[in-house]
C-alpha cells in the first residue's frame, strides 16, 4: 500500500486536474488545472525512477550503492521547464484576451465558431 502511495496520488491528482479543466469556466482556473495535471505527470515520472533505499544519482557518491534512476529526474526537469513556458504563454494570452474581450470566462471567448 505504502509502496503504491505515489501512484494513488497520481491518479487522484489526474482526476482533480481533469475535473478542473473540464468544469471550470475561468481561463486562469483552467490553466491551474493543466498545471495540476502536469504535476501529476511529473510525480508519476519521478516515482517510476525511485528505488527503495537509493541515493541521489550524483556521480561523486558512485561506489556500490543503489541509486535512484536519473533519467526520470531529467525528464521531470524538462517537463517542468516546458510547464513554465506553457503557463507563461497561456497567462499572456489571458491578459490580451482580457484586454480585448473584457473577460476571461471561456464561455464568452467564442467569437470563432461554426
Amino acid at each position, binding site marked *: 500500500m505504502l509502496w503504491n502511495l505515489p501512484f494513488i496520488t497520481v491518479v487522484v491528482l489526474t482526476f482533480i486536474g481533469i475535473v478542473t479543466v473540464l468544469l471550470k469556466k475561468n481561463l486562469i482556473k483552467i490553466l491551474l488545472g493543466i498545471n495540476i495535471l502536469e504535476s501529476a505527470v511529473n510525480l508519476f515520472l519521478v516515482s517510476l525512477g525511485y528505488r527503495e533505499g537509493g541515493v541521489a544519482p550524483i556521480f*561523486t557518491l*558512485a561506489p556500490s550503492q543503489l541509486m535512484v534512476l536519473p533519467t526520470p529526474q531529467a525528464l521531470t526537469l524538462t517537463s517542468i*521547464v516546458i510547464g513554465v513556458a506553457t503557463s507563461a504563454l497561456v497567462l499572456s494570452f489571458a491578459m490580451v484576451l482580457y484586454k480585448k474581450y473584457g473577460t476571461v470566462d471561456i464561455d464568452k471567448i467564442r467569437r470563432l465558431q461554426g
Partner: protein
Amino acid sequence: MSRIVRTAADILYPTILIFGLYVVAHGHLTPGGGFQGGAVIATGGALVIVAYSYAEVREWLSKNVLMGQEVIGLVGFIGVALLALAFGQVFFFNYLNASGSLFGIPVPYGINAGELNTGGFVPLMNFSVGCEVWGGLTLVILYMLSGLEKEGC
C-alpha cells in the same frame, strides 16, 4: 509597499542572487542547475518588483539588457554544443570532460564532497542556461507588468 518590506527586500535580494548563482554553479554536483538557479534569481527580481513599484523598477532593469542576456545565454548553450563539431567530435560531445583544462578534472572516485572543477562543458551550459532563464523570466514578468500598466492598474 511599506518601509519594512522594502528593507527586507533590500536585504533578501543579494542573498537570493548569491543563492541562485550558487545553484547555477553547482548544477553538475547538486540537485539544481541552470534553470533552477535562473528561476531563483528571477524570483528575487519579482520580490523587488513587489516591494517597490513597477515605475521604479523599470528604471533599474533595462529590457534591452535582459534581452541581450537571453540571447547570450541561448547562443552560448548552442555554441558550446556546436564547438564539439569544430573539434571533429559528435554534436554535444563533452570535449572538456577529463581533459585537464577548465572543468576538466576526472571525477574522484568514492565518497567525497564533490569537486567543482569537474563535469566538462556541463557547467558552461549551466551558466548559459542560468543567464538565459534569469533574463527570460524577468523579461516575462516585466512585459506582463507593462501590459497591466497600460490598463491603468
